Structure formats: structure tokens, C-alpha cells
């Protein structure tokens, strides 16, 4: 393994500040003269507001202001925009209700923003918030999907009949129906994809800081994409031009999707700061995170797989109801559509696929992208169906999958659900996982477990995912309201050290190390000589941020393209310095050399000449500082095979995870240590979904799982060590050959776990179990099956 550059397991450059307590998160920042905000949130799931009386709160010690949605409306503040528009099957646009940062006359979920109390201290703001008297007139609440789609259901939005936001389809319905008519076997399954709460350990925070001297604003915020926030908040909500609006997203304590979205509090703090002409700081309490961070997943699905007599998949039909929550969050509409149904081909050659997704409004927190975002839901549907098909047809689940895999010589492979896969080797990836899991030794382990009275099972998931939504023009055709490129800016300083400004944002991913390795590899300088700057719109030209495992594939490629410009310009300068023809100069390992000679100039010498251009090419600009905007040609398609082994105690229903073995094709690996770390984190979240986590609302729309006391987060003792391996094919359309790794764990492992549990319980006749497979659920499934 190399010690530097691409492929090196380089220890992280950013660690030092975090292990010494010198990280700088938003809540660590304090601005001179700042006041503190506390948000008054709705305790009702659905209610009209007859009045807000802030008179007592305003008399409380330290209170500076109490502001409401009416104040925002008076100032002409707009609504939080949806970043993606989806069409009904008949081509009409989705129902898109207004989403004011603070409500005016009606609350639509527990936690909805009603007012903001601003005081001299945090405690004073919180105390006074309790004195704001809001006259709620409760309305019937829609607490979940089953209520939303019931006949005669109350309406979350008057303009959305049946609570439907859109009824969308993808694929060839007629061809799929025909495939089912002629099929030898049909496998059907009803499943729930449980609702999750992201729970980055750092709660969201925002500081608005208005500067009256030049009428400019700075917002410090816990964001995965500061430029996107600047665009959305500036253009749509507050009407502020970019040059007067700076967004800083410093160290951010985990995101997992939940910090992509433009949240109300960002707009409220920025706006309030101008009204008060002083900085205003808000930091969420964890209970606020539970009721105001966008949630994830929440589908109910009926799925059918048609097979021919030989076990070839001939058709797939999926009908999904997706919960969007009370409002359309930034990417909420795209997640259960273009990030979900497009994945239904999986690793397989299924020729006919049709998916219908109906998205509903409910009186719950908005639902949006959470690690995996649509793709875990798709993999769960598909891989549970494949497992059930193997059982139903009496086929080996390994052989059934392999018989249906897209073969290496079929790439590029056009799926029936819009995507064109560029490359993959699904047999190779699967074989690597089978070996890692000692699949062939499972029978003996099952027998041994039986002697201890335990039920042992093994489950497989082979899946494809799609990262780096692209290209922008295609995303635009599909309804995206933004570009999905990335920006890399490489500044070679006069003495040869380098600063890279990237539009990607690191909130745990280790970009300061991985991106430095890219630069080291291409420009031949040590990683110590490279600084990565991100998270500040005043420093980075532009950016679309970090989500969907896009940072390396899109952000890294942008840096690479900027480095190519550096090398091209450096070659002209070096040729001049060495009195050679430009076409004779080659660049390698940090040196420009005249081919076939010992004439050479180091990058640092060339950089110096660029900034002290005394002996310099005519008509060439001084400086060595280049920016690239990189718009990918296609998505990338990581793939993997995850194999899970469980042991179940039939007396208690407790599931013991005995083995989690994963082989993934994440494309070219820049830093294997960081890649494995990303795998571990994704796996933990996937295991959390499969075994532990579930967001629960009661029938009146009250959030029952509103704290760590009743929402089960995975803890150290819930998880084993993971076995991770790789079988790599390089992406064919980006300059680095990389695909993405951030989400594969959370996408691949949930169906493998449930398949393993169902396998363990199969002798008792259990065919399916919903997530999370808690001891109670497993025990009940066993009792019901045996009854």
C-alpha cells in the first residue's frame, strides 16, 4: 500500500483539532453582542391559531423581542422552497403548498415554528417562550400514511385532495402487466419501510449576524451545503443578493442528509438579526431535533416479482405510498421517486418494471433524504422479494441472484427505469462477500447453534446504488431545480504550497485528508503542503455541497479538473523557462521535464515564476490559480453484496448479529482507512433501521419517540465488528474512477438482516417481518407462525 497519494491509508489531517477539543462547531461560535433565540413550537399536530398573545413574554426579564409569522409576512419573507418538482402520471405538477418559516394561522405538525423569543440569555429566552400564549384550535390530525389515504380523511392541505402531493409512475406499465400475465411464478410481498430520525449527534444551530455598515448578512449554520443555503434563502425566502449574504458552515457534527435542507431557523435568525441589528443565535435542544430535523424513509409498499419457469426475473411491479410529512422539504419530493424507483433494476436483468408512487401529506415532520435516501427503500423491496422468491421456488438464493445478474459484458446497461449503468462486476463482488462470510460453512454453524437451542439464519443482499445525481441537464429534465455540478479551485502559492477551495462540505467524511491525497498524487507535493478549504461562501467560489455520496465523484473530480488546468498552464511556463517547445514538456511527480533530457523544473519553481513573472511567456497571465466547474456525465453506480448471519433466541426473540460481511465496489479507493470508516458508519445506521430504530407517532399525531429515552439509537454494545472487503471496478466516466461509499452500508445491510432473520425463523414458517425486528416483534412472529 502506498504511503502517500491515492491508495494510502493516510491518518486524517483534521483529527488534531477534534481530539484536542479545538474543533469549531456553530454552537462554539459567539458573536459580540449576540442575543439568544428560542423557538415556540406547536404542541399540536394540527390546529388553527386563533391568536398569539406575547404580552407576558415581552415583560419577562431579558426579553428583546417576540416575533411571529405575521411579522415575517409583513416583511415580505417568502416560503421555504422545494428543490425538486415531481409530476403526476398525467403530467400535472405536484401540489406544492406554501411553507413559511413561521406559520401564520395554522400549525401542521408537532414542532412547527410558531414564534421566536429573543432574549439576552438562552435561559431567559426559553423561560419567556413558556409565557407566549398561543390559542390553538385543534383540527383532526393525519398521523401517518394509513390515516392519510383513508376514505374521507381530513385534509392536511385544503388544496391537496386525498392528501396526495403527487401520484407518479416510472417504467412501462403495459409491458410489465404483460410480463406478469405470462409468468410461471409470481412472488408478492407487503412491506413497511420504517420511519427514522437522523440524529446527527450535533444538534442544528444557526447564528444570524447582520452588519448595518454595509447592509450585509452572515449566517453561521450547521449545513452540508452552504452555497445551496445561500441560493435558497437568498433568492426565495429573504430576497437577499448573494454578494450581501455569506454562509459559513464550519465544523459540522454529522449530517447524514439531515443538514442538507434549508430550515426555517436559518431564515428566522438571519431575518431577526436585521430587525434587531444584533447577532441572534439559536441552538436546537435534542427534543427540537426530534421534532424539526427532517425525518427519513416511511413507505408502505406492495411489490410483486414475476419469474419464468427457470427462475429468470421477467417483471417487477411496485406500488408505494410515501409519507412526505406536513410540508415538502428541500429534496423531499425527489427521494421516493427519482432516488427510489430508478433503483428497481438492482443488479438484475429484469426487462419490465413499473413503479407507482403516491406521496401523501401528513401532520408529521417533513420527510426528506436520510443516509441512502430512496435507495435503501428500493434495495429493501427488491432484496426481500428475491429472498422470498428463492424460498417460494425452492431455489438457492445465491444461484437465483447469479442467474439474474447483469453480466460484465452487458455494460453500459440501460435499465427499464431510466438509469444507464456504466460498469460493474456483480459476480465478482458477490463472490468476495461469500468468501468473507464463509458462506459455505454456514450449515455447520446452523447445526451447532441448534444444539444450543438457537435459531441461526443467513441473509443476503446484492444491490446497486446511484450516486452523484447527474448530469445537471438530465436532473433538470427530471424536475431538479438546481444544477448538480461541483466546483474545485486550486491555488498554487508562489513557493509551491497549495490551497484547495472545494464546494463539497466535510462533516466527518475526512475531505481534508482525501482531497489532499488527490492533490499529492497529481501534483507531486506532500499532503502537508496542501490545505483544503470548505464551508464558507466567502472563500469558495460556488458549490453544491455534500450529499448522495457525491463529494469525491463530483467534488474530487472538480479538483482534478482544476489541477489539469494548473498543469496545462504550468507546462507553458516551464517550457518558457527551459527554452523548450510546450509539446515537449511533460509533467510527472511534481516536475516539468523536457522529454528525453535532464532539463526539469519543479512545480514550486514554476509557481514562483508565475508570481514573479520577470522571465515569463508573453501573453500569459501571471499567477497559478485555477477553478473548474465539473458536471458529471452520469451517476456513479456503486454495488455491493452484504451477508448477515444472526442467531435468535426463540424464548426471548433477541437477535444476535453474529456476522456482518460486506464486499463493495465503491470504485477506485483513495484512502482505504476512510472508506472502511464510511462503511462502518453506514452499516451501523442500516443495522439501526433493521433492528432498533423507529419513529412512532400516536393516532393524534403526537411524537412518541421524541428523545433518546424512547428512540433507540444503536449503541456500542448493539453492534459487532464488521468485516469489510472490496471488489473494485473503476467508474468509466469521471477522471478519478471513483464511485462513492458514504451510503452503501445503510442501503445494503437492512434487507440482508431481515433476510437472515426470516431464514432463521423459516423452519417455523415465518415469511416476513417488518423493521425494526425488535425482540418483541421476532417473538410474536414466531408465536404467530407456530400458532
Amino acid at each position, binding site marked *: 500500500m502506498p504511503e502517500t497519494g491515492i491508495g494510502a491509508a493516510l*491518518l486524517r489531517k483534521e483529527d488534531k483539532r477534534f481530539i484536542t477539543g479545538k474543533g469549531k462547531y456553530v454552537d462554539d461560535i459567539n458573536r459580540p453582542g449576540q442575543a439568544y433565540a428560542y423557538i415556540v413550537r406547536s404542541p399540536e399536530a394540527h390546529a388553527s391559531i386563533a391568536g398569539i398573545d406575547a404580552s407576558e413574554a415581552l415583560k419577562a426579564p431579558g426579553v428583546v423581542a417576540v416575533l411571529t409569522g405575521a411579522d415575517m409576512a409583513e416583511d415580505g419573507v417568502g416560503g421555504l422552497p422545494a428543490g425538486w418538482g415531481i409530476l403526476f402520471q398525467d403530467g400535472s405538477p405536484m401540489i406544492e403548498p406554501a411553507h413559511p418559516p413561521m406559520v401564520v394561522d395554522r400549525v401542521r405538525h408537532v414542532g412547527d415554528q410558531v414564534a421566536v423569543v429573543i432574549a439576552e440569555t438562552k435561559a431567559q429566552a426559553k423561560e419567556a417562550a413558556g409565557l407566549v400564549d398561543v390559542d390553538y384550535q385543534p383540527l383532526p390530525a393525519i398521523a401517518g400514511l394509513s390515516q392519510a389515504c383513508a376514505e374521507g380523511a381530513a385534509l392536511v392541505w385544503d388544496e391537496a385532495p386525498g392528501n396526495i402531493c403527487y401520484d407518479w409512475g416510472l417504467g412501462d406499465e403495459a409491458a410489465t402487466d404483460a410480463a406478469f400475465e405470462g409468468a410461471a411464478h409470481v412472488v408478492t410481498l407487503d412491506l413497511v419501510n420504517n420511519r427514522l430520525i437522523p440524529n446527527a*449527534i*450535533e444538534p442544528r444551530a444557526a447564528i444570524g449576524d447582520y452588519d448595518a455598515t454595509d447592509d450585509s448578512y452572515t449566517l453561521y449554520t450547521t449545513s452540508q451545503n452552504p452555497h445551496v443555503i445561500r441560493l435558497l434563502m437568498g433568492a426565495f425566502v429573504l430576497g437577499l443578493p448573494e454578494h450581501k449574504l455569506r454562509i459559513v458552515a464550519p465544523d459540522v457534527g454529522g449530517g447524514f442528509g439531515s443538514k442538507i435542507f434549508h430550515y426555517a431557523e436559518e431564515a428566522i435568525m438571519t431575518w431577526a438579526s436585521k430587525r434587531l441589528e444584533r447577532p441572534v443565535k439559536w441552538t436546537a435542544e435534542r427534543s427540537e431535533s426530534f421534532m424539526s430535523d427532517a425525518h427519513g424513509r416511511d413507505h408502505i409498499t406492495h411489490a410483486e416479482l414475476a419469474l419464468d419457469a427457470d427462475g429468470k426475473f421477467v417483471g417487477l411491479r411496485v406500488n408505494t405510498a410515501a409519507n412526505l410529512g406536513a410540508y415538502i422539504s428541500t429534496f423531499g419530493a425527489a427521494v421516493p421517486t427519482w432516488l427510489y424507483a430508478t433503483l428497481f433494476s438492482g443488479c438484475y436483468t429484469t426487462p419490465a418494471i413499473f413503479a407507482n408512487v403516491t406521496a401523501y401529506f401528513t401532520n408529521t415532520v417533513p420527510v426528506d433524504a436520510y443516509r441512502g435516501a430512496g435507495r435503501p427503500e428500493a434495495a429493501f423491496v427488491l432484496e426481500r422479494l428475491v429472498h422470498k422468491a428463492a424460498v417460494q421456488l425452492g431455489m438457492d438464493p445465491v444461484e437465483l441472484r447469479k442467474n439474474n445478474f447483469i453480466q460484465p459484458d452487458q455494460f453500459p446497461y440501460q435499465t427499464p427505469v431510466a438509469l444507464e449503468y456504466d460498469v460493474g462486476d456483480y459476480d465478482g463482488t458477490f463472490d468476495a462477500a461469500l468468501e468473507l462470510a464463509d458462506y459455505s460453512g454456514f450449515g455447520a454453524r446452523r447445526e451447532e447453534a441448534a444444539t444450543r437451542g438457537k435459531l441461526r439464519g443467513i441473509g443476503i443482499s446484492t444491490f446497486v446504488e446511484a450516486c452523484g445525481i447527474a448530469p445537471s441537464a438530465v436532473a433538470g429534465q427530471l424536475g431538479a431545480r438546481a444544477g448538480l455540478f461541483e466546483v474545485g479551485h486550486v491555488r498554487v502559492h508562489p513557493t509551491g504550497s497549495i490551497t484547495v477551495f472545494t464546494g463539497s462540505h466535510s462533516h466527518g467524511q475526512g475531505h481534508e485528508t482525501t482531497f489532499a491525497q488527490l492533490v499529492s498524487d497529481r501534483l507531486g507535493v506532500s499532503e502537508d503542503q496542501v490545505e483544503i478549504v470548505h464551508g464558507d461562501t466567502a472563500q469558495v467560489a460556488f458549490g453544491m455541497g455534500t450529499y448522495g455520496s457525491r463529494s469525491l465523484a463530483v467534488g474530487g473530480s472538480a479538483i482534478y479538473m482544476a489541477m489539469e488546468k494548473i498543469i496545462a498552464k504550468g507546462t507553458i511556463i516551464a517550457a518558457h523557462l527551459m527554452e523548450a517547445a510546450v509539446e515537449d514538456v511533460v509533467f510527472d511527480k511534481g516536475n516539468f521535464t523536457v522529454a528525453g533530457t535532464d532539463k526539469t523544473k519543479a512545480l514550486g519553481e514554476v509557481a514562483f515564476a508565475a508570481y514573479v513573472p520577470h522571465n515569463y511567456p508573453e501573453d500569459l497571465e501571471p499567477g497559478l490559480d485555477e477553478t473548474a466547474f465539473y458536471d458529471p456525465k452520469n451517476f456513479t453506480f456503486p454495488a455491493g453484496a452484504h451477508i448477515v448471519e444472526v442467531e435468535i433466541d426463540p424464548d426471548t426473540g433477541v437477535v444476535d448479529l453474529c456476522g456482518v460481511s460486506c464486499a463493495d465496489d465503491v470504485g477506485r479507493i483513495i484512502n482505504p482507512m476512510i472508506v472502511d470508516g464510511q462503511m462502518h458508519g453506514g452499516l451501523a445506521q442500516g443495522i439501526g433501521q433493521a433492528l432498533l430504530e423507529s419513529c412512532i407517532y400516536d393516532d393524534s399525531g403526537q411524537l412518541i419517540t421524541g428523545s433518546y429515552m424512547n428512540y433507540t439509537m444503536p449503541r*456500542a454494545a448493539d453492534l459487532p465488528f464488521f468485516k469489510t472487503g472490496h471488489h473494485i471496478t473503476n467508474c468509466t466516466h469521471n477522471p478519478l474512477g471513483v464511485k462513492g461509499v458514504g451510503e452503501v452500508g445503510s442501503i445494503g445491510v437492512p434487507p440482508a438482516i431481515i433476510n437472515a432473520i426470516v431464514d432463521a425463523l423459516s423452519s417455523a414458517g415465518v415469511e416476513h417481518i417488518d423493521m425494526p425486528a425488535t425482540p418483541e416483534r421476532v417473538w410474536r412472529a414466531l408465536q404467530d407462525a407456530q400458532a
Partner: protein
Amino acid sequence: MPTVSLTVNGQAVEGEVEGRTLLVDFIRETLGLTGTHVGCDTSQCGACVVHVGGASVKSCTMLAVEADGADVTTVEGLATNGTLHPMQTAFHEHHGLQCGFCTPGMMLSGIDLVGRNANPSEHEVREWLEGNLCRCTGYHNIVKAVQAAAAEMGG
């Protein structure tokens, strides 16, 4: 308002606090030591763990006035004369952190464990860390880091 006097990272400090002021708020807001984090409001995430009298304590669960006269160590006090504590080194070398938010609490918890059990097994480390939540690492490399630090610390 009551005044508290305590030792933090070897230095005598004093400050006026309200009776309700939590130790974590005193550390973060009054002393400006922002390495100690707040991740929840129910004393479960462990991001705020510090040492009080050498034992790990969730500083969101202790009033500042209760710490009067105590000897407190925060993450900022782990390195001595620029030399990292073996737990810090182990977290770095074993990639035991990603976003870094839970890391101070994890390290201080880990140090307390190793003080009580010089050679903890994987199972013992996992059980001990039940009061510390991490959403990034799946705990895999945290467990490895704590065990490596234990070996380095003489276990």
C-alpha cells in the same frame, strides 16, 4: 449569585453562576472551553463527559455549584506540554473519529474505563460505552482505539 471555585485542567478558576447553571454550561460559556459538547437534553449522548475528581461525569447532569472545589479535566486538558494523551493518539491512529462531535466524551469515558480496567475486552469496552452515542463510526474503530490505548497505557 453563588460563586464557584474549582480547578479545571490544572488551573484554578472562579466564576459566578446561577444556582441552575449546569457544569457543562459553566465550562462552555463561562470558561470558553468549547471542546466539551452538548448533544442531548436527557443525559444520554455522553458528548459532555468530563472528569470530576478523575471519574467520568456527564457535565450536563451536574450543577456547576456541585463542582465547587472539584478537580475537573476536559478534553482541552488531556495533552500535557503538547504531548497527546495515549487515548488521543489511539483515536487518531485507529480512525476512531469522523465528525469529532462525540469524540471528547468518548475519549474521557475511555480513559476512565482504562483507569478501572487496564485491559478491557471488546465486550467490556462496548458495555462501558453504553452512555456515549456516536452516529458516524459504528463504534468499530472507537472500540479498537480504546483497546489500543489501554495497551499503550500499560494494560
